[in-house]
């Protein structure tokens, strides 16, 4: 994954950046991961991995999100 996307995803998880997808599942995942990180910041790495896996599994759907997140 692109370094900028990676960095911005971390910021989204931490609540420093706001990004809403057109994909319901991705929004649900972001919301779930943000709560995990809020509960314990040590979860951040595992949450990033889960986000990576999600975006890698569905490249057709993720293409737009990746471009949008890179542009944040």
């Amino acid at each position, binding site marked *: 994954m692109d370094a900028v996307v990676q960095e911005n995803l971390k910021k989204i998880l931490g609540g420093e950046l706001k990004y809403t997808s057109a994909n319901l*599942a991705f929004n649900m995942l972001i*919301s779930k991961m943000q709560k995990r990180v809020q509960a314990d910041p040590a979860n951040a790495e595992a949450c990033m991995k889960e986000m990576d896996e999600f975006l890698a599994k569905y490249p057709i759907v993720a293409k737009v999100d990746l471009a949008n997140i890179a542009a944040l």
Partner: protein
Amino acid sequence: MLITLEETVALINEGKILHIAADESLLDKLPKGKWIGGTTPYFIGEEGGIYTKEKLFVNEIGVAEDIRVAVYGKYNIFQIVEECYDNGLTMLIIPYGSQVAAKYAKEAPEVEELLMHPVIGWISGLSLDGTGEARVYDGTTGKYYTDRAVAMYLKLPEGKTAMVNMINIFSDDKTDPIIRFNENDLSVEKCSVNGQEINFAEYIEKKGIDTKMPLVADYNGSYINTSIKSIENGRVNFYASVFRNIDYRFATDVGDYAAEFRKRIDAAEAHAPVFSCNCILNYLYGDLNGKKIPPYAGPVTFGEVAYQLINQTLVYCEILG
């Protein structure tokens, strides 16, 4: 498409992969085949919202390369995340009022991997005059169930992806108080409002809140609704679960449901959903009988599944790629 019993039987006998919604008097007459079904006499047809026990709503899922059908109870419903195709879509139908529906409502959001596999579905129901019963049908065996969920796993060709989405006409007013609950539950007595613990039923009464409006929770910009079923003996009962650690507000009023749907549908830009369903509460409160909301047609349901169980929402699936 809403079609006759004879037309539906012909499609089954041709070996088509089908999702079928209809009154049980019709579903009982179908031959075995590659189909699953659930009960409802309410539909949004191509000609508008309709109540009928004379026709079946049939989705032909032509894109699937292969299917498997399985039946689950409350102890094994979450095997759906293990038994689905790696690249596929799971269509799930659960009977209204069943223990498996309650289990799914309360626990689905916490299931690992749930969001990694597209799941769409609905809660089957019955006529609001009280006749009939909520059932699901496994067309491969010809059996029906009132206490089990039926899942159809659809295998998609390489390069195709299922995208489950929703159209929710409700949103909240961020200046309204935040409501939180202590447990994941379908029925609650207490809640906290802006941090102060109170009786939820009393709060609703005192504030004069219209319980036709759902609670909404903001999941990173996607609003998830939970509808109030009843208030009895100081408890508030819901059609789907509320969850601890989620901030809720009551939805703001919607004037013209059909017009609001039209606005959101235009914004969604979905062109060819392979499946959609809409909530019975939208049908009733929005007076959708006779009103069209193309391109979305399908069963009118007692709860909608877009990964987790939600309410008062139109859910749909498109195949991309």
